[in-house]
């Protein structure tokens, strides 16, 4: 766990998480093989993003399940109006070396 992590304020209905920041990730260009369940259905959908990591992350649960904030999006699905997206760490691929995991760039654990 990061020494910079702190308890985050989870919005109503969301899982609690611990927030953290890793400066080593700031500005790293990455692709996200994203997606998720479609609310109210048994369907799911894929979404692909490219952008730069801000260095912010959130750890959910005891595992932990780590998510990173991807900003300055240069690729996002048509109609996606947000400027940033939270991405599961295992679904992120550094553009300069997709074989590496994001964790390999981290200074924090």
């Amino acid at each position: 766990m990061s020494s910079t992590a702190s308890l985050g304020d989870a919005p109503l209905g969301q899982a609690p998480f611990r927030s953290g920041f890793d400066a080593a990730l700031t500005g790293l260009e990455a692709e996200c093989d994203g997606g998720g369940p479609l609310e109210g259905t048994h369907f799911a959908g894929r979404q692909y993003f490219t952008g730069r990591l801000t260095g912010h992350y959130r750890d959910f649960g005891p595992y932990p399940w780590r998510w990173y904030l991807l900003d300055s999006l240069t690729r996002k699905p048509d109609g996606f109006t947000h400027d940033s997206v939270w991405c599961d760490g295992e679904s992120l691929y550094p553009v300069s070396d997709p074989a590496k995991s994001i964790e390999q760039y981290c200074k924090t654990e």
Partner: protein
Amino acid sequence: MNSPLHTPLCDKLGIEYPVVAFTHCKDVAVAVINSGGFAVLGEALHTPDEIAADIKWIRERIGGKPFGIDLVLPSSVPAEKSVAELLAMIPQEQRDFEQHIKQKYNVPDPKIAPNIHVWGGLDQKRAMDQLEVVFDERVPVFASGLGSPAFLLKRAHELGIQVWGLVGKPRQAKRQIEAGTDVIIAQGFDAAGHTGNIGTFSIVPQVVDAARGTGVPVIAAGGVTTGRHLAAALALGADGVWTGSLWLTSRESDLNMPLKERLLEAETEDTMYSDCISGYTMRTTRSPWHDEWMSDAAPEVLKPPLQMILSSNYIQGSLDYQRKDLMTEAAGQGIHYIKEMKPARQILSDIVEEALDVFDRFAG
């Protein structure tokens, strides 16, 4: 001589045939398991209590045989959203177009409006709450239909749970194999729902290559509906097949009858890879909703979940009033070969026999 259909996946699961049924129907799952195949029940939409009840129901009927539960793990979530904000974000142009479709096709209002007030921002929480049931119940196999299950591997393995991951790209397979995922499902573009953009014939051998020497079985998914597909998947190096559309029209399936009839009539060209249902691209059967949103008069498709908010009344109305002419469902390109409503046991038996015939032909 060993059966050509006996693969390492059979040994890993203790099953007779390397055919995995993905289904949202408990009766289909039980029928396939008791016929020598394997089944994974899709529970992404269910509450933890419902999942626990379904697990109990299945266990009471399969005599200790293994089974799987599939959940959808989100892998990207917009930075912020609220239901009130989402509703306000639907432009008048798209609202008007929805009404135009409704009037043109006489689409009925649903009997009970879809509950959109539970939507938005619940992605991680929902998945984590559902996962606790999988852990508590020590389900033999957990399959992640979307998203990487890497974060939960340690805990799952400590509890004796196999973890399967479904991938649409070779790099996702490499990442998951390195993390320790037990089985990889390589899903091609032919598949129903949220497919990647690589065809089944191209992605399966690439994932097989990525898994070579690791002992991780690979299951082929996407368009698999016949014994010839099963034989071809094994020839590509896969250890089994993942089938979904195949079971939608089975006798045991709980889909309503007009929708089953619609699926039995559907051809490959009737499965459309479109974002008009949800805002995500996904493969579903063609309907007037698709035709209208693909027409020149259509406005821009909205982002998720706004488009789903628009389409949900149409879909629910078509189901509530059994309007076959309006219905749509996720289905893969292999739907061409699904022409009869058969018991699940016979579906499995037909696939196995056809695959064995293929191998006999090559051997002889």
